[in-house]
C-alpha cells in the first residue's frame, strides 16, 4: 500500500473539506437524477420517479456522514472540534484558567528546571573524550579516603599499572600572576604534560605541553580563553609572550578553547609542572587523573592499583605505610554524593508538587463537571455514546495542558537562569546547564502525563451520570456518593504528599538550624576578612616586620579592636601528617593523622575571639632563631597527651628520625570549627608564630566595634600606604564566609522549602475547594437543619469537622509515607534524626492550622445561610 499517497489523501481530506463535501453532494445528486431518469423511462411520472429514487437511495444525510468517516480523518476533525470547545471554555472562565495554568506551569516549570539541572550536572556525560573511562585516583590513608598523592608514588603507579591507558596529575593553585602592569591572584592549575591529552582536549591556539618540556622542567603556560580575551585582548600573537607567575616568567605556548574548564570553570591558566619531586612519596600535593584501558572496569583498576600501593608501602615504609589507593569515576568526583542525593530529592519533591497540582485540577474539573451534569445527561439521553463523551471531555482539557506546558517551559528557563546567577561556580558544571532537546522532551512527556491525569479522571465520571436522576427537576448532583468519595480521596492524597514534603524540608531546616547553632569556637561577629598576598619585593624574613607594622597601624584606627593574621581560616589544605611526640619509643610508628597547622600573628586569637584555655599566647620573644613554640587545640592535646598535661611537652612533625625541629607546647586553645564547613568536627590543630614559620600569603582579620565593612576602605588604604604591591582580595566578613561555606546546604534547604510551601498552598486550596463545594451542595440541608433549630455553631462544627476528618486521614497517611521515606534524606541531615518528633509534630500542626483556615471560610458561608431563603430557592 502506498503510504505516501494515503497521507496525501488524508491531508487533502483535512484541509480541502468543503471542496470534497461539494463533490460528494454533486455525485449523490447526479446518482439520484440518473435513478429518476431510469424510473421515468420505466413509466413513472416525474414526481413519483423522484420519490422512488430518493427512497431507494436511503437517508442521504446519514450516508454523507458515513462517507465522511470513510475518509479516515473524522477523528481528527472531532478532536479539533472538542479542543476548540475546550479553548472557548478556558476563555470564558479566565479565573479558572489562570489558576489552572499557573498550577500546572509551576509544577511543570519546577520539575523541568530541576530536571535540566540534573541533566546538566549529573546525567550528561562530561565534555571530554570517552568520559566513562576517566577516573580520579586518590591516596587512601587511615585518616581519609581521599588524600592527594606524592609525585614519586604517581610515577610508580603510572609505570606499574597495566589497566590504565594513562595517568596525569594536576594541582589547583592560586599564585600572583603579572600581566603587563597588573599583578593579581589568579586561579590556575599546575599540570603534567599529558593533562590535556588524557581529557581529549587541545588548545585552539598554539600547542599543548610536551613530555620533553616536562623532563627539562621548562616553564611554560597555557591560557584560558577568558584570560586571553580579558588580559591579551584576544590577539593571536600571544604565543611566545610571557606570563609572570610569582615573579618567574613562563612562556605562553597555547590558549584553550572557551568550553574547556577543568579542574574548575574559573581556571584561568595552566602551568606545566616544573618541580623536582622525584623522591616525594606518601601523601603529596597532586590530584591524579586516570584513563582506563578500553574494556577495563574500575574494580579491576582499583585492585591492581592497590596491589602496587601495597608493594610501595613495603618498599618505602617511612612514607607509604598504611597508604593505599582508591579509584573513583571522574563524574562522581565532579559531582559528589551529597549533591546527587540533594538533586534527586529536589526532583521528587517538585514532581510531588506537580502531582498535587494535577489532583487539584482534577478536583476543580470535577466541580465544573457537576455543573455540566444536566447537559451531559441530556446528550446521553439523545443517544450520545458514553465513551465518545468521555473522550470529548478529556480532549477539552488538552488545551489547558498545552498552555500549562508552554508557560512551564518558559518558567523553567527563568528558574534555570536564576539558579545559575545565584550559584555559579558553587555547583559544578552549572554553566553547562541549559534547556536542551532532552529537557524539552522531558517537559513534553511530563505535560502529556499531567494532562492524562487531570483529563481522564474527570472524564471517567460520565460513566456514573444517571440520566433519569440528573434530568429530574430539582435534583442535586447524582452519583454523588461515588464522586464525593473520589474528591475526598484526591484531597487526602494531596494532604499526604504535602505532609511528606513539609517533613522533608522541616528536617533540612532543623539541620540547618542546628548547624547555625553550633559553637564554632570563635566569635565571627563584626570581623572583617581580607586575603593579602605580599609582593615579591618583601621576602619571607621581612614579612614578619610587615605584619607587625600593618597590625600596629590598623589597631590604631578608630573602631578597630584587634587585628590578626592567619594563613588560612577555613581552608583544608594541609590536612595530613605525622606527629612524633617526645619520649615515644623508636618502634612505635605513628600513623598519618589528619592535622592542620597554620602560621599566625600573636594577636590572632583575640581577633577571632578564641579563648585561651591554658598557658600563654605568642609573644614578642617567639622570634625566628629561638627554639620553636606552638599553641595547640584541645583535640590535639587529647589525641597525643591523653591523661597528661600537654603544656610544656615537645613534639615534632614527621617520623621519629625526622630532622624537623622540636616544638614546645606553650598554650592550649579551644577547638575551632574551621574545616571548610561548620559541619565537620575539628581536627587537631597546631598554631605557629608567623615569625618562626614565615608566609607571604595570609588572611587578615580585623575585629571592629561596629560594622566591619565600614572600615573596609580604610583598611585597604592602610595596606596600600604600607606597600603598593600587596594584592588585596575582595573584602568580606567572617560571618559571610561562614555563610558561604553553608551555601550548598542553604541552596537545598531553600529550594525544598519553597517547593513544600507551594505544596502546602495547593493542598490548602484543595481542601478549601472540597469543603466549599460540599457547602454549596448542602445549602438546602443546612437550611433544614437551621430551621429545625440547629445553632450557627452546630453548622460550623459540622462543616469544619467534615473537612478536618479528611485532612486528618491525609496527615495520618503522610506520617506513614514520611516514616518510610525520610531515611533517604539521612545523608543530608545534621544531628537530626529522620523521625525527628519535633518536625513531625510541627508539620502536622501547620497542616491542621492551614486546613482549619481552609474549612473556616466556607463554614462561615454555611453559618450565614438564611434557612427561609435556602428552602425557598431550591
Amino acid at each position, binding site marked *: *500500500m*502506498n503510504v505516501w*499517497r*494515503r497521507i496525501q*489523501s488524508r491531508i487533502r481530506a483535512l484541509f480541502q473539506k468543503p471542496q470534497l463535501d461539494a*463533490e*460528494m453532494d*454533486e*455525485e*449523490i445528486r*447526479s*446518482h439520484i*437524477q*440518473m*435513478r429518476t*431518469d*431510469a424510473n421515468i423511462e420505466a413509466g413513472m411520472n416525474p414526481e413519483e420517479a423522484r420519490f422512488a429514487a430518493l427512497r*431507494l*437511495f*436511503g*437517508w*442521504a444525510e446519514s*450516508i454523507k456522514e*458515513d*462517507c465522511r*468517516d*470513510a*475518509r*479516515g480523518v473524522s477523528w481528527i476533525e472531532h478532536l479539533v472540534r472538542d479542543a476548540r470547545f475546550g479553548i472557548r471554555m478556558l476563555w470564558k472562565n479566565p479565573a479558572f484558567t489562570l489558576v489552572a495554568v499557573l498550577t500546572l506551569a509551576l509544577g511543570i516549570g519546577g520539575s523541568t528546571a530541576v530536571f535540566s539541572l540534573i541533566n546538566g550536572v549529573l546525567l550528561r556525560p562530561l565534555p571530554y573524550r570517552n568520559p566513562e573511562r576517566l577516573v580520579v585516583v586518590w591516596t587512601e590513608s587511615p585518616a581519609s579516603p581521599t588524600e592527594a598523592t606524592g609525585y614519586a608514588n604517581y610515577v610508580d603507579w603510572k609505570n606499574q599499572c597495566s589497566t590504565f591507558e594513562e595517568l596525569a596529575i594536576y594541582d589547583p593553585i592560586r599564585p600572583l600572576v603579572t600581566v603587563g602592569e597588573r599583578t593579581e591572584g589568579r586561579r590556575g592549575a599546575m599540570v603534567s604534560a599529558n593533562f590535556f591529552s588524557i581529557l581529549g582536549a587541545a588548545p585552539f591556539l598554539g600547542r599543548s605541553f610536551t613530555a620533553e618540556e616536562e623532563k627539562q622542567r621548562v616553564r611554560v603556560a597555557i591560557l584560558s580563553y577568558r584570560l586571553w580575551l580579558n588580559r591579551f585582548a584576544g590577539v593571536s600573537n600571544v604565543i611566545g609572550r610571557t606570563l609572570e607567575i610569582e615573579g618567574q616568567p613562563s612562556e605562553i605556548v597555547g590558549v584553550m578553547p572557551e568550553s574547556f574548564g577543568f579542574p574548575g570553570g574559573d581556571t584561568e591558566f595552566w602551568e606545566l609542572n616544573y618541580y623536582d619531586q622525584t623522591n616525594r612519596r606518601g601523601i603529596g600535593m597532586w590530584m591524579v587523573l586516570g584513563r582506563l584501558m578500553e574494556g577495563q572496569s574500575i574494580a579491576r583498576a582499583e585492585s591492581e592499583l592497590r596491589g602496587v600501593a601495597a608493594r610501595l608501602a613495603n618498599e618505602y615504609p617511612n612514607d607509604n605505610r598504611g597508604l593505599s589507593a582508591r579509584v573513583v569515576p571522574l563524574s562522581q568526583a565532579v559531582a559528589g554524593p551529597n549533591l546527587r542525593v540533594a538533586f534527586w530529592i529536589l526532583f521528587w519533591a517538585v514532581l510531588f508538587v506537580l502531582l498535587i497540582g494535577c489532583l487539584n485540577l482534577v478536583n476543580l474539573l470535577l466541580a465544573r463537571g457537576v455543573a455540566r451534569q444536566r447537559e451531559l445527561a441530556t446528550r446521553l439521553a439523545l443517544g450520545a455514546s458514553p465513551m465518545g463523551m468521555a473522550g470529548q471531555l478529556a480532549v477539552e482539557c488538552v488545551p489547558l495542558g498545552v498552555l500549562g506546558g508552554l508557560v512551564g517551559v518558559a518558567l523553567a528557563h527563568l528558574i534555570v537562569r536564576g539558579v545559575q546567577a545565584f550559584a555559579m561556580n558553587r555547583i559544578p558544571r552549572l554553566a553547562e546547564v541549559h534547556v536542551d532537546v532532552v529537557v524539552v522532551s522531558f517537559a513534553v512527556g511530563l505535560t502529556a502525563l499531567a494532562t492524562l491525569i487531570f483529563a481522564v479522571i474527570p472524564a471517567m465520571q460520565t460513566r456514573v451520570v444517571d440520566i433519569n436522576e440528573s434530568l429530574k427537576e430539582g435534583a442535586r448532583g447524582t452519583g454523588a456518593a461515588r464522586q464525593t468519595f473520589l474528591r475526598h480521596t484526591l484531597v487526602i492524597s494531596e494532604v499526604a504528599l504535602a505532609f511528606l514534603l513539609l517533613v522533608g524540608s522541616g528536617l533540612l531546616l532543623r539541620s540547618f538550624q542546628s548547624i547555625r547553632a553550633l559553637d564554632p569556637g570563635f566569635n565571627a561577629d563584626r570581623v572583617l576578612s581580607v586575603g593579602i598576598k605580599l609582593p615579591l619585593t618583601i621576602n619571607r624574613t621581612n614579612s614578619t616586620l610587615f605584619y607587625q607594622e600593618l597590625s600596629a597601624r590598623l589597631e590604631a584606627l578608630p573602631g578597630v579592636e584587634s587585628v590578626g593574621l592567619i594563613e588560612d581560616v577555613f581552608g583544608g589544605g594541609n590536612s595530613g601528617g605525622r606527629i612524633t611526640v617526645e619520649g615515644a619509643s623508636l618502634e612505635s610508628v605513628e600513623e598519618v593523622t589528619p592535622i592542620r597547622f597554620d602560621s599566625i600573628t600573636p594577636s590572632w586569637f583575640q581577633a577571632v575571639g578564641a579563648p585561651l584555655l591554658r598557658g600563654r599566647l605568642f609573644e614578642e620573644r617567639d622570634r625566628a632563631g629561638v627554639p620553636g613554640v606552638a599553641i595547640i587545640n584541645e583535640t590535639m592535646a587529647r589525641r597525643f597527651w591523653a591523661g597528661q598535661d600537654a603544656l610544656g611537652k615537645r613534639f615534632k612533625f614527621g617520623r621519629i628520625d625526622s630532622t624537623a625541629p622540636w616544638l614546645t607546647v606553650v598554650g592550649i586553645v579551644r577547638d575551632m570549627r574551621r574545616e571548610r564547613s561548620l559541619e565537620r568536627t575539628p581536627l587537631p590543630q597546631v598554631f605557629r608564630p608567623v615569625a618562626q614559620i614565615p608566609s607571604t600569603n595570609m588572611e587578615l582579620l580585623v575585629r571592629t566595634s561596629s560594622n566591619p565593612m565600614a572600615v573596609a576602605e580604610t583598611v585597604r588604604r592602610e595596606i596600600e600606604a604600607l606597600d603598593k604591591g600587596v594584592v588585596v582580595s575582595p573584602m568580606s566578613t567572617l560571618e559571610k564566609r561562614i555563610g558561604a561555606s553553608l551555601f550548598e546546604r542553604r541552596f537545598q534547604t531553600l529550594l525544598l522549602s519553597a517547593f513544600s510551601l507551594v505544596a502546602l498552598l495547593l493542598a490548602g486550596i484543595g481542601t478549601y475547594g472540597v469543603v466549599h463545594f460540599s457547602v454549596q451542595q448542602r445549602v438546602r440541608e443546612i437550611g433544614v437543619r437551621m430551621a429545625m433549630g440547629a445553632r450557627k455553631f452546630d453548622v460550623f462544627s459540622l462543616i469544619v469537622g467534615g473537612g478536618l476528618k479528611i485532612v486528618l486521614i491525609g496527615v495520618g497517611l503522610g506520617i506513614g509515607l514520611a516514616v518510610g521515606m525520610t531515611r533517604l534524606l539521612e545523608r543530608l541531615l545534621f544531628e537530626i534524626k529522620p523521625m525527628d518528633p519535633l518536625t513531625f509534630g510541627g508539620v502536622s500542626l501547620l497542616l491542621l492550622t492551614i486546613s482549619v483556615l481552609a474549612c473556616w471560610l466556607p463554614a462561615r458561608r454555611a453559618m450565614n445561610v438564611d434557612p427561609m431563603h435556602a428552602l425557598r430557592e431550591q
Partner: protein
Amino acid sequence: MLILKVLSRESTHGFGICQRIQQWSDEVLSVGEGSLYPALYRLLDHGWIESEWGVSENNRKAKFYRLTRAGRKQLECENQSWEQMCLAIRRVMQAI
C-alpha cells in the same frame, strides 16, 4: 468485492455499479443505493480504485471509478479466499 468485480469489467459511476450488481445478480442483490457510497469512499481511501469526473451515457455529469493495480491484486486475493470459503462450506454441507 462485488464493486471491485464490477469495476474490473469496466469503469463506471456509482449508479452504473448499482445497476450492474442488480443485473448480474438477477435483482437478488439490491441494497439501499446510498450505502454504496461509503463503501466506495473506503475503497478510494485504500487506494484500490481511482475516481475521475466524466459524462454519463445520457449526458449527466458523474464521477467515474476505475480499478487500480492494487485494486486488481486485492480482487484476486478476495476472489481466492472467497473460493476457498465456498469450497469449504460446500464440503461441509456435502459431508452431512
